[in-house]
């Protein structure tokens, strides 16, 4: 997460002659081929930069909007322990958004611009967060399934060719594991509870299963970005490969819980050693992504309201900083420590 605000800007595409441009591209491709990391100030093709800005910012927006469905249950968590855990988890999601915005900014886009794209509806975020959290079991299902799918998706990105994105993802994956385990623990508690609690857990699985399976994005045949992203080593596995991995690990977990996956066609295939599912209803995925999901309006309104309600705080802080020379009260210089401790 080094920053774009370092002294010299990355050279623009087109600065070099056509021959020079071709040479730069060849050298870039060779670096990718050798599995070298690309860092912010290194030359990169404009399309690589734009692809990363799109993907990382969508990822960041998903973390930020992802705080809303679970935040809905903080005040109604069934115990103090559950409440403390849920607050910590939602705070993590906010932190993950911050790491990712920082990584996106290294590519030369301003954070304010990214936030604006989210708030005015131009930017996409994961369609899963446009579903409502109707019961407490939904909090369990989100941790177990949604965070489980996110982990499956994110672990390969730890090896992404773009250094700042890969580093952000390492940090996120370390933290995400607790999210999934706390979700499964909620499901397990409900599954071992009363008949009403078991029904609540089953209902949550029924509603969250298919949206979670669709989180990996369109099937390979319909995915527009996969091939190029794989060549650039931004992606390491296709959407369908990751989806299959997720299904294969999750089905036995559902069995352990004694819950039924809502797919009558689901079966173990001995030949391929994979679970095979019934057809996925992609029309629903497309509708939700387009803005017609159950909560799209509500989510964006909540983000806009938060942004607007916080504007006086941002203005006051900026005015205060201007008055005090940007240092803030009681902020001590580290320079003297640095020279004392680390000079040869």
């Amino acid at each position, binding site marked *: 997460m080094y*920053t774009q605000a370092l002294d010299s800007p990355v050279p623009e595409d087109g600065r070099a002659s056509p021959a020079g441009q071709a040479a730069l591209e060849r050298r870039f491709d060779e670096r990718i081929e050798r599995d070298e990391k690309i860092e912010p100030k290194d030359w990169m093709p404009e399309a690589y930069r734009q692809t990363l800005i799109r993907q990382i910012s969508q990822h960041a927006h998903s973390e930020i909007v992802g705080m809303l469905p679970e935040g809905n249950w903080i005040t109604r968590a069934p115990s103090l322990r559950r409440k403390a855990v849920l607050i910590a988890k939602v*705070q*993590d999601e906010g932190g993950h958004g911050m790491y990712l915005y920082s990584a996106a900014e290294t590519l030369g886009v301003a954070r304010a*611009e990214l936030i604006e794209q989210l708030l005015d509806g131009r930017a996409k975020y994961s369609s899963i967060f446009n579903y409502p959290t109707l019961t407490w079991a939904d909090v369990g299902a989100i941790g177990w399934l949604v965070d489980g799918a996110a982990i499956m998706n994110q672990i390969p990105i730890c090896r992404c060719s773009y250094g700042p994105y890969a580093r952000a993802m390492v940090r996120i994956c370390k*933290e995400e594991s607790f999210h999934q385990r706390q979700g499964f623990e909620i499901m397990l508690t409900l599954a071992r509870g009363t008949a009403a609690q078991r029904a609540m857990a089953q209902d949550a699985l029924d509603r969250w299963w298919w949206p979670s399976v669709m989180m990996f994005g369109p099937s390979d045949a319909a995915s527009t970005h996969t091939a190029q992203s794989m060549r650039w080593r931004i992606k390491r596995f296709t959407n369908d490969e990751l989806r299959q991995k997720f299904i294969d690990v999750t089905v036995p977990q559902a069995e352990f819980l004694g819950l039924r996956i809502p797919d009558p066609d689901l079966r173990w295939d001995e030949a391929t050693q994979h679970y095979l599912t019934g057809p996925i209803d992609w029309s629903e995925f497309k509708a939700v992504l387009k803005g017609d999901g159950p909560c799209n309006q509500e989510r964006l309104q909540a983000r806009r309201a938060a942004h607007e309600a916080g504007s006086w705080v941002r203005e006051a*802080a*900026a005015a205060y900083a201007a008055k005090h020379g940007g240092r803030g009260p009681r902020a001590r210089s*580290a320079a003297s420590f640095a020279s004392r401790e680390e000079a040869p």
Partner: protein
Amino acid sequence: MSEDWPLFEVFIRARSGLEHKHVGSLHAADARMAIEHARDVYTRRQEGVSLWVVRSSDIVASDPEEAEALFEPARDKVYRHPTFYAIPDEVKNL
């Protein structure tokens, strides 16, 4: 579009005895707020005992285009490493 607060780079000392290490960046109105945000964003799991923040615009970095000129000259100076020197096995403590 509203203006972003200045960008700060964040460095954490994981525990006493170790150097501060770059972990990421964040926006803050001033240095004090940058410390407070760094604490929330980068140390939720006891990642450190000390924080530095520095305005990103104050960092001067080497140019990747000059990496060869800067770092290549060290490549053929293997004699700067102890393994360059052949010493008979029977010589001890060397």
